[in-house]
């Protein structure tokens, strides 16, 4: 496929008290449209990704809300797949372009989380899990903690391995002015912060964030910009207990195999990646499931520094979900934007030298949905 | 003859000593232990209530008796801590036990004798031939006002008895009941905690009803205390049942098997019923058991049971004896009780 990213727009990620969801979506969308040199009239469709807004505020019908607020009268859709909503919106937008139905589309992912009470947010996020998981009093930190426990039991992964993910991503975020936490943290800080769900501390978990990201995608391959050459989705059970193994996210493997095939590249050809580190263990699993290292060795792989800027395969130069922030549905779009900027050599201090092929990995729930994209310059 | 076919008991594992409660409120421990004679009491967890306790006890009764729940035609739950004022505990318990829909269910309240009232009432269904098996439960997560003297004894437990005509382990030889309007202990719907009338709860309340009911049953059955191998009274503390026993001519040995109050406190509707279960755990074929419950408000239900030869095989099947559950304990401090108060009263 030869889809082009014609424009990008990203808000600051953080506690943005004076902005509501629509403000965020419009800020990002307008920046993306302006960068693309297209006009509102050129946009055929708006794919709006959001997970929580209906539940938290009662406002649904977001596709129409965002599109009409932008003055776009074409098609509009809301896309939801838990934390993979952003990636799914990109994927569906691409399908509409490949089908020839639309020529230029706007994909915007936005989330407004900080208006609600913490326990309400934790409950709302559990919408990405199963009913039985909710009845058991589980939370997303707890679900990933169970996966971390299994990984520690089987492979001897340690809390230090987990913490090194957080430390590395904070280092990257310190060079990203859009990040929620643009500062470094030490191993001690991560290991000694309050336990939220054993063995995770506060610093093993991505935060509650407001933010939005938008991209203009076009099937006009003469447009200057980066190509998306692979886009694939895979699905597994919503319920963690029903998975074949707690030691992997099988849908990651499935989606990446498909996406890499579409792009005509192998995992060893990837120069950098944005992966879904909702919790530290998730990044370790991603390293293994995407094939950057062998199963069981993900912790070591990160701890050795291979995924740090300057290393073999820089991962999450944006700061990842942990340090850049995780406005749920915006993340998948932000990942596309980060890789796009890297391939366009616009990443400033966190620029990866010689970056030409990048990968994004966006996960919904505890691994029920995975979306993988391949981008090439 | 109608009798007990099987039974089950559930005692929560947490225990608190009076010293922990006294410490919390700045009271003198030794005085309390001396006057009440309760050494520790059972405390239910924050996610337990009279319904969950009933399910545990009743399930064990069904398991021990190898009884298909669908054959139970009547269920009563006697409690002072029914989770709802309007909505029966007995139907929730019946549903979860798998009893189906062909049964009579009723929730009973009569302070600490609501459970035994159920035994008398349900036995009527069986003797009329309306159904073959019935289930009488006494279950409480007893409430008491924090810092009140009742807090040292009010505890949690449940006992369930399946009654029927065949394969009984103990026959119900006879029973009687003695009732009057006596305001010794009460709680209106609008109130969180019960109130009591101090020393009035002794002689005109507990003793008047227990002694009268017991003497009436002695007369009816033409028996005296000497005829019995075991006796169980409602145990609000260690003193009252010992005194009642003495007054009626029973000796301490007869009281021993069912005397559970020192180890688990007073689980209200389950008190005499858990005592009866503890007695049946060790009783022998042919032995006679006398039981007299007491419920404030007030009334006493008195029973004579005769143990059958079936008891031996039953005791082999019953792994969760009262003694075993009394032993399976973990000491706690006041924090769980504080948590339960916050949770229950939505503070």
């Amino acid at each position, binding site marked *: 496929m030869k889809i082009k990213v014609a424009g990008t727009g990203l808000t600051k990620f953080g506690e943005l008290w004076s902005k509501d969801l629509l403000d965020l979506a419009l800020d990002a969308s307008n920046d993306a449209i302006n960068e693309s040199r297209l006009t509102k009239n050129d946009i055929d469709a708006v794919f709006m990704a959001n997970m929580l807004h209906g539940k938290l505020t009662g406002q649904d019908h977001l596709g129409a809300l965002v599109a009409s607020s932008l003055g776009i009268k074409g098609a509009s859709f809301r896309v939801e797949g838990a934390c993979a909503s952003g990636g799914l919106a990109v994927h569906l937008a691409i399908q509409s372009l490949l089908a020839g139905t639309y020529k230029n589309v706007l994909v915007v992912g936005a989330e407004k989380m900080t208006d609600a009470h*913490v*326990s*309400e947010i*934790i*409950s709302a996020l*559990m919408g990405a899990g*199963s009913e*039985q*998981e*909710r*009845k*058991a*009093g*589980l*939370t997303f*930190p*707890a679900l990933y*903690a*169970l*996966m971390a*426990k*299994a990984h520690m*039991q089987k492979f001897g992964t340690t809390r230090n391995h987990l913490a090194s993910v957080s430390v590395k991503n904070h280092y990257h975020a310190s060079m990203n002015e859009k990040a929620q936490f643009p500062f470094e943290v030490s191993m001690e800080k991560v290991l000694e912060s*309050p*336990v*939220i*769900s*054993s*063995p*995770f501390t506060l610093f093993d978990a991505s935060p509650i964030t407001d933010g939005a990201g938008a991209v203009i995608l076009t099937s006009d391959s003469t447009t200057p910009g980066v190509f998306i050459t692979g886009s694939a989705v895979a699905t597994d059970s919503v*319920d*963690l*207990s*029903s998975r074949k193994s*707690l030691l992997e996210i099988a849908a990651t493997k499935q989606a990446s195999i498909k996406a890499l095939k579409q792009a005509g590249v192998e995992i060893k050809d990837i120069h950098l990646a944005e992966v879904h580190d909702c919790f530290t263990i998730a990044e370790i699993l991603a390293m293994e499931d995407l094939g950057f290292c062998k199963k069981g060795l993900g912790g070591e792989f990160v701890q050795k520094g291979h995924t740090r800027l300057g290393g073999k395969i820089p991962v999450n130069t944006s700061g990842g979900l942990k340090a850049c922030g995780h406005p749920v549905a915006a993340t998948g779009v932000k990942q596309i934007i980060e890789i796009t900027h890297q391939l366009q050599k616009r990443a400033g201090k966190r620029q990866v030298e010689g970056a030409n092929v990048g990968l994004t990995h966006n996960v919904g729930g505890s691994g029920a949905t995975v979306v993988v994209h391949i981008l090439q310059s | 003859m109608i009798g007990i076919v099987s039974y089950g008991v559930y005692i929560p*594992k947490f225990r608190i000593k009076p010293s922990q409660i006294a410490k919390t409120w700045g009271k003198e421990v030794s005085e309390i232990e001396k006057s009440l004679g309760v050494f520790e009491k059972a405390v239910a*967890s*924050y*996610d*337990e*209530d009279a*319904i*969950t306790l009933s*399910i*545990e006890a009743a*399930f064990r009764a069904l*398991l021990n008796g190898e009884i298909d*729940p669908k054959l139970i035609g009547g269920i009563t739950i006697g409690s002072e801590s029914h*989770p*709802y004022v309007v*909505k029966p505990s007995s139907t*929730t318990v019946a*549903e*979860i*036990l*798998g009893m189906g829909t062909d049964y009579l269910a009723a929730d009973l309240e009569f302070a600490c004798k609501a459970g035994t009232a159920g035994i008398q009432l349900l036995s009527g269904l069986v003797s009329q031939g309306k159904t073959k098996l019935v289930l009488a439960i006494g279950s409480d997560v007893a409430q008491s006002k924090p810092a009140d003297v009742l807090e040292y004894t009010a505890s949690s437990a449940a006992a369930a008895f399946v009654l029927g005509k065949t394969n009984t382990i103990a026959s119900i030889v006879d029973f009687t009941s003695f009732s009057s309007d006596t305001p010794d202990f009460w709680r209106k719907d609008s109130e969180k905690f019960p109130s009591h009338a101090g020393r009035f709860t002794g002689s005109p309340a507990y003793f008047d009803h227990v002694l009268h009911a017991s003497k009436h049953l002695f007369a009816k059955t033409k028996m005296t205390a000497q005829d019995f191998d075991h006796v169980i009274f409602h145990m609000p503390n260690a003193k009252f049942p010992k005194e009642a026993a003495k007054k009626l001519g029973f000796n301490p040995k007869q009281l021993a098997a069912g005397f559970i109050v020192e180890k688990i406190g007073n689980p209200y509707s389950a008190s005499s019923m858990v005592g009866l279960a503890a007695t049946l755990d060790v009783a022998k074929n042919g032995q006679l058991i006398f039981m007299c419950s007491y419920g404030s408000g007030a009334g006493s239900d008195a029973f004579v049971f005769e143990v059958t030869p079936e008891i031996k095989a039953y005791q082999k099947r019953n792994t969760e004896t009262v003694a075993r559950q009394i032993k399976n304990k973990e000491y706690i401090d006041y924090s769980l009780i504080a*948590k339960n108060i*916050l*949770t229950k009263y*939505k503070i």
Partner: protein
Amino acid sequence: MSTPVAIWRQHKTLSPYLNKVGKLIVWTKIFVAPSGFEHQTPYLVGIVDFGDHKMPLQIVDCEEADLKLNLKVITVIRKIGKAKAEDVIEYGVKVKPL
């Protein structure tokens, strides 16, 4: 928490879960809870293998230190979460060490 009708359907599914024995595969101690579970913190949740299927369940009546891989656990029926004043109480399956 669930609506009365959802609870009604749910209670009908509980009787097969009485007294079931399974083994504990993984567990975690939760300190930050969702709405309706705040009164329980900290509490333990794990995945239990019943042979023919696995389930996520709360683990009660024990401490984290009591838990180990493949620990035998048995089901109990307890209250799920905390019903609001006007709600129906929900009962459900949890496990405790055997």
